[in-house]
Structures are given as structure tokens and as C-alpha cells.
């Protein structure tokens, strides 16, 4: 006898359950990637929408294929702005993911070691900022970091800065790192905590009973067992940071290049849709492998 399923039963209900979300994602998530790829191969034009050619139907696909141009991609390879943005995004994403792991791990570890009764409260305290708007949290840092901001005021009050001195963090890469670490910290802590909480404390007790020093026990037992959480947390942070726009735009200066910001400017300021599509396609190609790894990790969890 086939296993009964709550939403299944007659085949048509089962198909409806599968088809509704499936079709929605096919149309609104997958199909757009083909369109973005197509437009990245079109020429820029001063029109609305600002590009040619547009395929009207599949039948005209063949004849239009000749009009496709790889000009946008040649342009990307040619102009140092783009590849420098990609490299800079990669660098910033790598460094900030490492910083997030370094800062997030001790916090998640302490949460997992806390008494069972306070754990839900601690978890709630980590989740709450995650529910608060990204934009608002980044905005909060502007008031702190700007030259006449609260950090300057605080440091002057403590006598660490002279009355005429000001902190010069705003509009630098340091500000971008602070903003990223601040915004993504919950994304790092949550998977780490999930992995560490499952850890069997008796393993550590056994190790210490057998004379294993705590530091060694950490590296031999805790760290390897928390690796799934480490991997999930790192990918959960690294991938979106690569395309981050709000943080470099609001906290970074004109010399902080990140590809999300470049794409945004290409689209909104230069109104160059084909070039911004090409920028997006290349970013997607860079991220395909990390995203696949992330999905494999997620499926196993």
C-alpha cells in the first residue's frame, strides 16, 4: 500500500500542490535568468526599453541570432572598472566572511554552552536584529561613524581624541567591513549555534577524563563536529556579500569598489541595461559553484 499523504490522495491534488510553487518559481525565478542572458547580448539603444534587439517570438529567434553581440562582455573585459570591482568584491567578501567566523564562533559557542533555560532567550536576541531592516541597521552606523558622529563624541569624552580631532572611518573600506560584519553576524551565528547545540557534551567530558587538555579537545572534537555549521554559515554570508549594494553605497567611499554597486550605477545612473545584465551574468557565473555547494549543504541538513 502506498504511504498515505496529507495533501496527496487523488493525483490531481498532489499535482496541484507541486505545480503551484513549481510554476511560480519557473516563471519568476528561472525564466528571468534566460532573459538577463539574452539582454546581456543585445546592443544599448536610446529608447524604452533601452536596448535592441528584442526577440518577439521564438520563430524570429533564428534571424535575430545574427544580431547578438558580445560587445558588452568585451566591454567588461576591457574596462578595468569591472574586473577591479569583481576582484575587490571577492576580496571584501573573503575577508569579511573570515572576520564573521572569527567573531561569530565564540558567540555561538558560548550560546551553546549556556544553561538550557536561557538558550531560547539568547537565540531570540540573535534573531531579533536579523528581522530588523538591513537599511535601518546600516543607517544606524552612519550616525556613529561620520566625522562629527557619536564615535568621535565618545572618544573625545574619554580623552582618546583631542577636541579638534575626528575619526576618519566613514566612507572608507573599514566602514564597509564594520557594516558587513554587523549586518551578517546573525547569519553566521545561527547555523554555527545549530551545529554546536547538537554536540554531545559527554564526548568532551570523556576527553577531559582521559587527560585531554581543553584546547586540544576543542580542535579534536568540537571543531570537526561543528564543521557543517561553519560551512553553512560561511556560504550564507559569502554569497550575498559578493553582490552587496546597500553597505558599500552608504558606508563606503568612491574608492570602495563592489560589483553590486557598479551594477546599480550602470543600471540607474547610466541606464545601460545590456551592460548591467552582462555584469549580473558574470557575477552569477562566479557564484554558481558556491551556490551549488550551499545547496548540497542545505539538502543534507
Amino acid at each position: 500500500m502506498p504511504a498515505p499523504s496529507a495533501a496527496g490522495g487523488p493525483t490531481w491534488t498532489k499535482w496541484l500542490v507541486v505545480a503551484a510553487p513549481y510554476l511560480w518559481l519557473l516563471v519568476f525565478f528561472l525564466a528571468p535568468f534566460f532573459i538577463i542572458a539574452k539582454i546581456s547580448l543585445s546592443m544599448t539603444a536610446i529608447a524604452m526599453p533601452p536596448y535592441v534587439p528584442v526577440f518577439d517570438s521564438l520563430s524570429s529567434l533564428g534571424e535575430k541570432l545574427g544580431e547578438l553581440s558580445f560587445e558588452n562582455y568585451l566591454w567588461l573585459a576591457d574596462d578595468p572598472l569591472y574586473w577591479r570591482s569583481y576582484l575587490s568584491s571577492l576580496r571584501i567578501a573573503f575577508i569579511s566572511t573570515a572576520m564573521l567566523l572569527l567573531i561569530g564562533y565564540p558567540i555561538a559557542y558560548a550560546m551553546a554552552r549556556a544553561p538550557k533555560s536561557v538558550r531560547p532567550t539568547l537565540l531570540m536576541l540573535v534573531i531579533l536584529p536579523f528581522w530588523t531592516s538591513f537599511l535601518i541597521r546600516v543607517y544606524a552606523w552612519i550616525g556613529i561613524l561620520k566625522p562629527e558622529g557619536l564615535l568621535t563624541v565618545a572618544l573625545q569624552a574619554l580623552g582618546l581624541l583631542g577636541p579638534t580631532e575626528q575619526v576618519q572611518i566613514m566612507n572608507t573600506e573599514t566602514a564597509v567591513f564594520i557594516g558587513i560584519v554587523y549586518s551578517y553576524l546573525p547569519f553566521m551565528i545561527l547555523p554555527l549555534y545549530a551545529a554546536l547545540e547538537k554536540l554531545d557534551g559527554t564526548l568532551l567530558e570523556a576527553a577531559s577524563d582521559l587527560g585531554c587538555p581543553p584546547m586540544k579537545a576543542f580542535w579534536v572534537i568540537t571543531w570537526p563536529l561543528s564543521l557543517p555549521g561553519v560551512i553553512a554559515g560561511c556560504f550564507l554570508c559569502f554569497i550575498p556579500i559578493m553582490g552587496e549594494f546597500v553597505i558599500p553605497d552608504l558606508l563606503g567611499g568612491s574608492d570602495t569598489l563592489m560589483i553590486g554597486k557598479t551594477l546599480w550605477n550602470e543600471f540607474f545612473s547610466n541606464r545601460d541595461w545590456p551592460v548591467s545584465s552582462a555584469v549580473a551574468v558574470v557575477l552569477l557565473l562566479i557564484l554558481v559553484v558556491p551556490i551549488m555547494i550551499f545547496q548540497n549543504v542545505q539538502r543534507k541538513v
Partner: protein
Amino acid sequence: MSNKLSWFNVTSLTLGFAFLYIPILLLVIFSFNESRLVTVWGGFSTKWYGEMIRNQALMDAAWVTIRVSFLSATIATVLGTLAAITMTRYARFPGRLLFSGMIYAPLVMPEVITGLSLLLLFVAMDFSRGFWTVTIAHVTLTMCFVAVVVQSRLVTFDRSLEEAAQDLGCPPAKTFFAITLPLILPAVVAGWMLAFTLSLDDLVIASFNTGPGATTLPIKIYSQVRLGVTPEINAVCTVMIAVVALGVIAASLYTKRVEVERERAERAAVAQAG
């Protein structure tokens, strides 16, 4: 893990939570500042909240945002719950791998890519941009979050009640609404809330897909933030934080109550049987 916190654990927790909360606290405190200067305390005042309410453009944007978030969260919850059922209950169907790929990818996909690609789809379909395009974009993003939240509940779900109902001749659809849905309801509610706040907060995807008359609150805030920090924006942000925090706390209290009631009912059932 063991229950003894070392000084190192306590320090990491203290510093970690201070880092997470001090910026938000400062923002809230300075929304009550009399002075226009954000760094100088000029005394307690609620005048910026008054300014905020009198700012018609801001209020219009807030109203658009609430409508978009409510509608998109509701559609996303239905689709996301169906997706979660699909992922946990139907082990094989054609294209299952693609399906789970499409559920997980939006969780990490940079927003600039999702936003731009959807916009290009709408333009290709000759769909005029505005309220509906932002709503559709938000459904697409948030349904995947709902799916993941509901899925995590369904995985630990005890199927024996469903099986018992079906053995007693309860039709599948009725079984779903009478047994499955009430049991997974806390996760569905949490999914809806997450979808609602994600939609409420989104700047990037909304900026790409918005049109005339559909300026959302984050778009409005962003355009003002670029001009500088003002107490009025602090007031708007404080209200948004308060709404979300109250919602999250209410939802967690509700979940706790549902669990307590279920435990009590189970105990009563056991007592009756005995």
C-alpha cells in the same frame, strides 16, 4: 553541551550582544532628541514623530509598503507551505532537483541579480511596473524563506496522526486542514511573519521593480538617507523596529502557548485513557 560558562564565554556573549544592540539603541534614543543635530542631545522630545506623521509622502510610502508586504506575505505563505509539503512528502517527481535548487538559490542570491532579472522579465512581458510587480517580486523571494521554515517543522512531524485519520476514512484534503495544518501552524505563522518583514525591509528588489505611485518606505528612506542623517528618519526607523520587535515577541509567545496547550491536552488524553 555542558552548563558551565567560562569568563571567555561570558565576555564573548557580552561583547557580541553589545555590538548587535548598541547601534540600534543609539538610533532609537536619538529619535527622541529635541535637537536637529543627531550627535548633540538637546533634551527629550517627540516632535520628530509629529513631523513624520505630517510628512504625506512618507505616510503614502508606508501605506504602499504595508499593502505590498501583507499581500506578498500571504501569497508567499500559501506557495511556500505547498513547496515545503512537496519537498518533505514527495520523494520523487520529475525535476525534483531543479525544484529544491529553485527553493534554496533565492536565499543567497544577491538581490541586485534577482531584482534586475525580474525587472527584465516584466519588461519583456510588457507588464507595467508598479504595485503588482513589487508584490510578485517579493512573493518570489519570500516564499523560499517560508518553505525553509515550514519544512524544518514538517521534517520532525509525527505522521501517525495523519495516518490514523486516513485509516478511519478521512479524505486527504480534510486530513490536511483538520490535522496537519493545526500542528504546523506555528511554523506557518513564523513563515508569514518572516515574509512580511523581509518584504517590509527590502530596498534593492523593490527599487528595480517599482513604478509610478509605488514608492515603498525603504526606497523613500534610502533617498533621504543619502542626503544625511535626520531625526525624522530615526523616528521612522524606530517605529519600524518597534513594529517588527512586537510582532516577533508576540509570535514567540503565541508559539509557546500553543505548545503548552498541546502538552496539557496530551497529558489530559493520557490521563483519560488511563
